């Protein structure tokens, strides 16, 4: 045992360059795995924090009685409870204010806003606690201890009461929106004591909105949690309509986790596969070059098992040394990079304002990575170990690196340096091939992704929101808002917000060159699918003959024949989920068109499915749409093109117009482009980083092969020099060998790599990833890869060249005697 261990250690010392290379490969593998794992942990943590910003409640049960709350309190599935009671409305001019009684029944619920930042909760009858804006709105300085007079109506009805309160606590709140929002649209709330609520509202009239968390968040998926919530509601007798789920949080908590885990598992698998291949190849090469050595050991009486253990000991020794470094690097890279990336992302995304310190360290991830690396090393050693064990003692006596069946070589009449290189590679063609394949594989991987990443065009992404022109002024409408029907498109269209006069006023803005209208109208149907369920409505718009080509490019099914569509009410469906909705080409759907307060029915026929984007699910030919003779103007979008020199001025003017009407939303090209650039680089650069590391691992392999090839040929190189190979010829020979590797690798990456790249692109396109739509050939990446390969190649050659020069020629010959 110790003999094997000592032998392993001395072999590691002796084959220094191989040891270092293997160590680097293993370290990089660990770095990659740890980096991916840590990043995932960080991203999940960000998501979790974002979700927490909206509160970690699972659901709210509205209007529960005191008894129902008691039942909830004792329910086995309920983890945390918090109650809110609308105690009174505030009577103060036009202020939309209210007072609530808030109580934590069972701890565990957090909110992003409304947390106590100063003072304490209201306990006495005359105490009040609220956000600064509440007190400011009434005209009292928000300082603890200040007195405030408030008139209020308990329960929102009946007599107005006036009382004096003392401010006892300040609650956190959202930043007040920067733009002007009419005062009536902002609700101001403050909380009062239980004592006060008890004094004004009789027990049997109490009605609590109850936030709850159920047990099992960590093990249940979204649907299962929803089921638990519904069952709990039924148990306490809460009506289904009174359940409000915190879907965003639930999805974030459950599905995001599993999705992220799936992505991470996928990436890790690729990394493991790849680095396994490289480590395998390094050992493979070392076994076939060590044949003589192994033969000697066997001749001395080493058993197969001992030989295997020798290799295993070597592999694990290196790992013990390399893995900790990899873990540290793998943790530190995301530790520093992720907050920076996230900060950049914040600029485009306004979901959450601030993220606390990220927690990225996870012991399970660490353990998993370590296990994965050791398993990878073990698996990649299996075959080389078997090969080594099979070496026969006779091999020790022969001086070839392995006994090959080849006896003859056709050869050439004349020998030159290039033929010398080629002969060496042919002689060791297994080693050559394995190296080329692993190198090629990493480049193929690179090219595959490069095509797709290169197709993430900023302009394409910006055009997703602004189809044409420089600005888009759009109506922020709903289709199915039951509580606030005034938000729905049919009602909004009656307000005629995009009147001719309005459009004219936009055209009057200095710098505006043109305005295109695009309209849409709500439709409902009895057709049975998820879209139309429960009176669901979708929007219908139009397309023109000139657009046909574009829709044909992205077509998934069916066929576009404009004239036949005009005559047969044919429509294009713009969703990839057409099969799920049962809306296959040929299906005729009876629809009800909601034209303001007027409704009529018609039949449309699905002719084609082309998910090219846009807000409207169905598109009629323009002629047919116009024939509908809608009474109300159905414009929902204005596409505004302008003189680029006046961009800023026009933007200011349009921003003012958009801010004046709550239903308007303005998209501007510069912002969309900036967001596009940001999202592209957020994906692109981390991907390139991973790819670069993968490439480096692959490169280790080439370095190993070339160094091995020189070390094992030391004697031969000496003999070659003795018969007159000059230094420049030696360099030429090494360059020649490297060039063949490079050429093979390049050939593989531009052929197979680009082919795979295109397939990956098609896949990405069909899943709608990053709104990729056009294939952009990765020119820069291809050139970059070529240059990097050639430079790397030259670097290795000169490194090896340098090493050979350091040893005097005579030593290389002497080691043969």
């Amino acid at each position, binding site marked *: 045992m110790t003999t094997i261990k000592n032998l392993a250690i001395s072999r590691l010392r002796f084959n220094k360059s191989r040891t270092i290379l293997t160590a680097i490969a293993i370290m990089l593998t660990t770095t990659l795995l740890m980096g991916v794992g840590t990043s995932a942990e960080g991203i999940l943590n960000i998501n979790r924090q974002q979700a927490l910003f909206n509160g970690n409640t699972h659901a709210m049960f509205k209007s529960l009685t005191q008894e129902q709350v008691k039942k909830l309190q004792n329910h086995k599935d309920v983890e945390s409870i918090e109650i809110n009671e609308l105690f009174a409305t505030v009577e103060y001019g036009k202020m939309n204010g209210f007072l609530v009684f808030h109580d934590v029944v069972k701890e565990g619920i957090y909110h992003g806003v409304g947390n106590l930042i100063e003072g304490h909760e209201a306990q006495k009858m005359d105490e009040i606690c609220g956000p600064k804006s509440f007190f400011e709105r009434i005209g009292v300085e928000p300082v603890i201890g200040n007195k405030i007079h408030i008139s209020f109506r308990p329960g929102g009805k009946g007599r107005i009461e006036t009382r004096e309160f003392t401010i006892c606590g300040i609650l956190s709140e959202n930043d007040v929106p920067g733009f002007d929002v009419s005062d009536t649209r902002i609700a101001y709330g403050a909380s009062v004591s239980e004592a006060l609520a008890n004094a004004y509202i009789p027990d049997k009239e109490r009605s609590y909105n109850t936030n709850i968390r159920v047990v099992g968040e960590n093990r249940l998926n979204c649907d299962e949690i929803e089921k638990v919530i519904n069952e709990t509601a039924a148990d306490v007798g809460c009506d289904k309509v009174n359940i409000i789920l915190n879907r965003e949080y639930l999805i974030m908590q459950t599905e995001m986790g599993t999705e992220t885990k799936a992505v991470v598992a996928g990436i890790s698998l690729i990394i493991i596969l790849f680095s396994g291949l490289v480590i395998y190849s390094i050992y493979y090469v070392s076994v076939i070059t060590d044949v003589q050595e192994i033969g000697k050991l066997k001749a001395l009486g080493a058993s197969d098992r001992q030989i295997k253990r020798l290799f295993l000991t070597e592999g694990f020794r290196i790992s013990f040394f390399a893995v900790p470094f990899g873990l540290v690097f793998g943790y530190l890279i995301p530790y520093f990079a992720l907050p920076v990336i996230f900060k950049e992302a914040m600029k485009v995304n306004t979901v959450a304002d601030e993220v606390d310190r990220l927690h990225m360290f996870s012991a399970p991830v660490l353990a998993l990575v370590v296990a994965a690396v050791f398993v990878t090393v073990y698996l990649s050693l299996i075959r080389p170990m078997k090969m080594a064990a099979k070496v026969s003692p006779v091999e020790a006596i022969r001086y*070839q690196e392995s*006994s090959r069946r080849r006896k003859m*070589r*056709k*050869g050439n009449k004349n020998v030159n340096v290039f033929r010398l290189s080629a002969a060496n590679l042919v002689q060791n063609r297994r080693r050559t091939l394995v190296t080329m394949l692993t190198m090629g594989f990493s480049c193929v991987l690179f090219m595959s992704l490069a095509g797709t990443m290169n197709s993430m065009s900023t302009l394409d992404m910006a055009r997703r929101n602004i189809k044409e022109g420089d600005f888009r002024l759009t109506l922020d409408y709903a289709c199915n808002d039951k509580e606030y029907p005034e938000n729905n498109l049919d009602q909004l269209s009656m307000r005629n917000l995009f009147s001719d006069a309005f459009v004219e006023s936009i055209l009057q803005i200095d710098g505006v060159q043109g305005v295109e209208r695009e309209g849409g109208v709500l439709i409902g149907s009895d057709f049975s699918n998820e879209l139309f369920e429960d009176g669901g409505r979708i929007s219908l718009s139009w397309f023109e003959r000139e657009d046909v080509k574009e829709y044909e490019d992205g077509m998934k099914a069916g066929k576009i024949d404009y004239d036949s569509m005009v005559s047969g009410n044919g429509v294009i469906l713009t969703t990839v989920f057409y099969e799920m909705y049962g809306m296959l080409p040929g299906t005729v759907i009876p629809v009800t068109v909601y034209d303001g307060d007027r409704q009529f029915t018609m039949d449309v026929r699905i002719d084609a499915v082309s998910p090219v984007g846009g807000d409207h699910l169905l598109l009629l030919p323009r002629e047919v749409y116009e024939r509908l003779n809608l009474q109300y103007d159905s414009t929902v979008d204005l596409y505004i093109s302008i003189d680029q020199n006046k961009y800023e001025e026009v933007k200011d003017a349009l921003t003012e117009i958009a801010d004046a009407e709550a239903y308007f939303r303005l998209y501007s090209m510069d912002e969309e482009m900036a967001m596009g650039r940001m999202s592209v680089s957020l994906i692109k650069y981390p991907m390139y980083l991973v790819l670069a590391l993968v490439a480096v691992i692959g490169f280790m392999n080439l370095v190993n092969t070339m160094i091995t090839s020189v070390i094992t040929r030391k004697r031969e190189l000496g*003999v070659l020099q003795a018969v*007159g190979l*000059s230094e420049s010829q030696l360099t030429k020979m090494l360059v020649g060998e490297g060039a063949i590797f490079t050429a093979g690798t390049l050939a593989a990456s531009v052929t197979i790599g680009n082919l795979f790249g295109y397939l990956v692109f098609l896949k990405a396109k069909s899943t709608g990833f990053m709104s990729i739509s056009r294939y952009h050939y990765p020119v820069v990446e291809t050139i970059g890869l070529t240059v990097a390969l050639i430079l790397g190649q030259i670097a290795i050659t000169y490194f090896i060249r340098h090493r050979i020069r350091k040893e*005097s*020629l005579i030593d290389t010959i002497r080691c043969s005697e």
Partner: protein
Amino acid sequence: MKTILETKELCKYYGSDENLVKAVDHVNLKIMQGEFVSIVGKSGSGKSTLLHLLGGLDNPTSGEVWVDGKNIADFSKEQLAVTRRRQIGFVFQAFNLVSSLNVWENVVLPVGLDGKKVDEGFVKDILRTLGLEKKEKNLPNTLSGGQQQRTAIARAIAAKPSIVLADEPTGNLDTGTGDEVIALLKLSAKKYGQTLVVITHNEDIAQMADRTIVIEDGKIVM
């Protein structure tokens, strides 16, 4: 007759102080063109070192080596390489051949490295002389030890060098084969008018030489 190889106060020392090894110590030597010289001496006496210095494979600690009237210390590395492939042929004890090249390619290697066209008739002639005409396409690992040494000899004379330096060329061979190889070496040297310097342990071989040099502790004693 012309002096083809000459050394002047040639020294090669290894190590320093107590560990100083005088592998070659003030050697003065003249070898004439066409001469067959054998070098004998105990193991470790400095024979190989001397041979390597003569062939410009190693740099002397002091002293000079003159090849064909030129001091090789004045040569650049490139010129030295050229001199080796044009003027000098080496045969070592073992591992003489490039394993990925066949017999023919190994033999024509120095010519090829010189960028010259191979004189096929001449090479065929050598191979015939050395009894390798049937082995042209064989890779070295399929040859017997004697065949490998014969191939090395063929290579040493294929570039028509004026000097052939051989370091125990028969050390790995049985006596019969060894004698045969030396006979062939001598024969071809005669045939092509070459100077031959052979290190050997073998008395018989030493006897075949025109002159025998005996080395002891880096010094010529006879």
